[in-house]
């Protein structure tokens, strides 16, 4: 029998993501000061803290609604490029899930794939451009296999951004000087999948 997950699971995922961002904010900011403007950790922490607070107050009833709410809040609180990009990822995935009260791992993978496609469209980036897509794309592809496989794929994708040359966002102005640094957006994207695996493992 295929296991399925309800709204409470997705709420726990978002809370775990907020915890991970809080713990790793310093590292994200450090990565961002090498090739960006040293605010990725602070901006994401502000956003996910708002998400966790809102979901604790009034948790929506379906997995889709939880993701839509989380996405909306990220767009309203983060700013920069990461706000609209992370917000779109979750909002679009949530819309894809519709009104269903439960979701399977396969269903979640399909919804997140739609979210990742929307991120690519919004940001105009493709895998290999040294962005969050380099972690998200392999993670979503591996999710039907297992939560652990998705997490491992995200981590590997983030690590693989080190030798890449940035072509998008503020790191793009650095050109060759961006080579040799891990992308902060891919790193924070990997945190999302680490949180998902932790919550699934219970």
């Amino acid at each position: 029998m295929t296991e399925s997950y309800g709204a409470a699971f997705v709420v726990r995922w978002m809370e775990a993501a907020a915890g991970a961002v809080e713990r790793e904010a310093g590292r994200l900011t450090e990565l961002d000061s090498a090739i960006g403007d040293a605010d990725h950790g602070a901006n994401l922490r502000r956003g996910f803290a708002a998400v966790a607070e809102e979901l604790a107050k009034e948790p929506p009833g379906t997995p889709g609604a939880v993701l839509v709410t989380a996405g909306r809040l990220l767009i309203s609180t983060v700013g920069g490029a990461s706000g609209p990009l992370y917000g779109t990822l979750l909002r679009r995935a949530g819309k894809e899930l519709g009104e269903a009260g439960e979701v399977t791992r396969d269903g979640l993978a399909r919804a997140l794939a739609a979210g990742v496609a929307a991120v690519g469209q919004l940001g105009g980036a493709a895998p290999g451009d040294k962005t969050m897509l380099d972690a998200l794309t392999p993670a979503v592809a591996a999710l039907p296999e297992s939560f652990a496989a998705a997490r491992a794929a995200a981590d590997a994708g983030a690590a693989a951004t080190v030798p890449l040359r940035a072509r998008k966002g503020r790191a793009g102005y650095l050109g060759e000087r961006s080579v040799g640094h891990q992308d902060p957006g891919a790193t924070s994207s990997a945190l999302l999948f680490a949180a998902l695996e932790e919550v699934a493992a219970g």
Partner: protein
Amino acid sequence: MRMLINVPETVVEDGLRGLAAAHPELTVDVERRVVVRRDAPVAGKVALVSGGGSGHEPLHAGFVGPGMLDGACPGAVFTSPVPDQMVRAAAAVDSGAGVLFVVKNYTGDVLNFEMAVELAEDEGVRVATVLVDDDVAVTDSLYTAGRRGTGATLFVEKLAGAAADEGAPLERVEALARRVVARSRSFGVALSSCTTPAKGSPTFDLPPGELELGVGIHGEPGRERRGMMTAREIAEIAVDAVLDDLRPSDPVLLLVNGMGGTPLLELYGFNAEVRRVLDARRVPVARTLVGNYVTSLDMAGASVTVCAADEELLRLWDAPVATPALRWGR
């Protein structure tokens, strides 16, 4: 680094409280970070709204007032504002004649303003957008974020603001703003890094005795790093970088802009050198503005922006303006 602040977390709010105290003619929502003209919406007039990360003051809130912007949305330091701010500002200033968003070309600003356009249109506000991308130091290509928006933002906000003041409809104000962007180019030079309050140490490492040619207004690197030069030598490089990209056949509007940490005495001296180079290249200067307008916190350095003006643009430049940072006429 010593800063005249309370704590880094409240610099934007503290600045807005001070702006409100100094300028009762503005309505400043400190918590939601929205600044609008107190008399907004102005009946029948197209409204202009801009916004961007803080740290570039007086841009944008210092340009809110008759003849220029109707509203401004400051984000966190060097971080674009969120769509909610622009939607709130648009709703507050729209008289029904529509709203023009003036957006500097950075990924974060572009994405947040795009979302704001959708949300504002859902609320029944007619919105047009102009993207400012004047910095010639950046190679423009399909595969990058493209040129950055810098000094030309002031020209767009002043000239389009004057057109809106004259009663031009949204389509005309938008077309004029695009024309200003197409006719404007900038080039910046840093003599020191900037320091953000949150980080407290220099954003980039510029050894003493060196300067960064083609720097961006967030301390983004430019074309190259060179040993220190005289104002005369820097002016030649900056002006030629601009003229390589735009050969004006009309007299120009000239902005010699300080990055925040360079004294006005030096800026005026630099302007003399810029003018000398423009004269030598046979580019007539119609109007000049010298001062700190599009800054990068405490960065030492300057940028040169040129806009090829025609009669209409000159008339709009001379039109009255009454904002905290730009004020003449009437």
